[in-house]
């Protein structure tokens, strides 16, 4: 017999009431926690994926689409740009590094990217097995790709035209896996990387292109294997690193006004994306707070109502030696116990739900969002719930504190 056992017995004596109160609070806390977890993880994913990329240059269209497609690999390309034009741009002194990207094919939903090894280096990718690609049609795959498609070194597969599963299969040429990257929680995990020539090779049957390799002329700055100023070759985009902060002001304007290409800044576009998504997040957050307020109200009402029937209990306990402060404390502890159970339940619910979602929904899986991440804010939520319980219980507790025992005992 102790204080907590007394409080616990009171709570268990009304299991449905207690359950409802805890559930209401748990739902509110769970929604807030899920939003926090997803938001935090998405933010870090986005900044990790956009790290080191100051500007994306591609065909004219939606700048957001350009970013989504070329950095996060979730939207479709805006079109192609001429390799010759890209080369001309890269000669600009403000550019420190430019990585060419050629998109268009996929394998079982995983995108095949034609690029150079600067691209994986941008993300500090490390090989788990094998080696980087050296020739056309050799590819290095991300860890998620290897795991989901059960691919290992020397396996071959045919690319599918387009970025969805419904495209035509390029049966003429097969890719061969030469390396598998270690998981590094960036987009690379879900990509298949090879050289740009492979992507061109795939599409040779459809568009008549000159053979890329036999040239004694000046080599392209972007793709040494290709003749410079080759007017027919196209790529999807360029990922650009600035040499100096000044470039951020001049380069985008230069590209957008003086070429057929467009430049989009990942930082600016993702900020814009978040301000669009922000409305939805705000609504959900508001909904969660409403749930929490309702839970608090419900706990308050439950304690207030039980006060009436417990008046006599309290008077009896006073007659048995309980002090006013002890009874006050009992009531406050009862409120706190409920809110702590509710918020712990909410946190468990949130993490559990995210674990299940991350395990079953492939779209979420590819973003790398996990339920196993615990944020420092969660302990803050927990301590706030202690405060909430105390506040809910305070008014009923004060009423108990003030009760006249003799009057209660004498009134039958």
């Amino acid at each position, binding site marked *: *017999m*102790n204080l907590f*056992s*007394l409080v616990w*017995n*009171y709570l*268990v*004596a009304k299991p449905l009431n207690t359950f409802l109160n805890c559930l209401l609070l748990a739902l509110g806390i769970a929604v807030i926690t899920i939003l926090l977890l997803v938001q935090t993880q998405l933010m870090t994913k986005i900044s990790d994926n956009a790290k080191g990329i100051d500007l994306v240059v591609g065909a004219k269209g939606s700048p957001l689409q350009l970013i989504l497609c070329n950095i996060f690999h979730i939207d479709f390309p805006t079109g192609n740009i001429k390799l010759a034009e890209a080369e001309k741009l890269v000669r600009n002194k403000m550019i420190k590094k430019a990585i060419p990207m050629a998109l268009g094919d996929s394998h079982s939903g995983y995108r095949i990217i034609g690029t150079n090894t600067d691209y994986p280096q941008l993300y500090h990718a490390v090989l788990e097995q094998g080696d980087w690609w050296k020739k056309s049609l050799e590819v290095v795959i991300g860890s998620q790709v290897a795991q989901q498609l059960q691919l290992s070194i020397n396996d071959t597969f045919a690319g599918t035209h387009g970025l969805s599963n419904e495209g035509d299969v390029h049966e003429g040429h097969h890719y061969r896996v030469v390396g598998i990257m270690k998981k590094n929680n960036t987009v690379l995990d879900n990509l298949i990387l090879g050289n740009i020539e492979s992507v061109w090779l795939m599409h040779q049957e459809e568009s008549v292109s000159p053979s890329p390799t036999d040239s004694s002329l000046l080599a392209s700055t972007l793709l040494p294997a290709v003749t410079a100023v080759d007017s027919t070759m196209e790529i999807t985009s360029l990922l650009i690193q600035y040499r100096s902060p000044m470039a951020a002001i001049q380069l985008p304007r230069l590209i957008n006004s003086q070429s057929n290409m467009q430049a989009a800044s990942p930082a600016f576009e993702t900020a814009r994306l978040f301000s669009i998504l922000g409305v939805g997040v705000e609504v959900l957050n508001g909904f969660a707070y409403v749930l929490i307020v309702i839970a608090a109200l419900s706990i308050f009402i439950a304690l207030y109502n039980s006060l009436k029937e417990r008046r*006599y*209990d309290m008077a*009896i*306990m*006073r*007659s*048995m*030696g*309980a*002090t*006013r402060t*002890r009874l006050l404390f009992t009531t406050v502890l009862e409120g706190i116990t409920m809110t702590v159970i509710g918020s712990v339940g909410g946190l468990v619910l949130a993490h559990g739900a995210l674990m299940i979602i991350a395990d079953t929904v492939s779209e979420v899986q590819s973003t790398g969002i996990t339920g196993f991440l615990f944020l420092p804010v969660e302990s803050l939520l927990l301590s706030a719930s202690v405060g909430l319980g105390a506040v809910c219980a305070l008014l009923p507790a004060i009423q108990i504190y003030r009760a006249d*025992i*003799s009057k209660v*005992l*004498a009134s*039958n």
Partner: protein
Amino acid sequence: MISTTKLAFNYPSSDSIHFNDLEIAPREDCLLLGESGSGKTTLLHLLGGLLRTYQGSIKVNSNELKELPEKEMDFFRGKQYGFVFQKNHLIHALTVEKNVLLSFYLANLPINMERMKEVLDSLGLYNKRKSRVTQLSYGQAQRVAIARAIVHRPSIIIADEPTSALDDQNCNKVMELLLQVASQNESTLIVATHDQRLKGIIKKQIHLHHAMR
């Protein structure tokens, strides 16, 4: 051990009640008799330290009750008193056993499981100790209330109308039980009642008259 002098109490309705001086020796059993409205419950609450705004004096074990600070009064009450109320109100959320153990806990005494079992056993409630109090019959509930009042060996047992709802047979049983546990525990037993059947059981009787003025 319990003595009052010139005791008077003002009701909030500005009525006041005056009590004749009384003296109850240790281990003495005492009956407070009077019709309802005669101030029995008021006197019991005054003697039990539940009402503390009185004139005159109440001394229990040579402590003037109104001079004890409230907290000390609570502890004093917890250790020295055992109350049996008319309605044997038990804490519904707790089992029989925990209702009884509450006496130790609230009086800040060490939890004595042996004593609890002994008391429940002597009242024939041992096999009911894990039951919920809502599953008990009236008689069983009353015995639990008595067990709760005496388990911590108080020096004073105060019972308010313990027999008013009982038939003759049960009335005798309960009184026998109260007298027995009081003498076993060497406690003073004070019973307030309007039940005339008890007149023949306890010798020392204090009659309260409608003394409102």
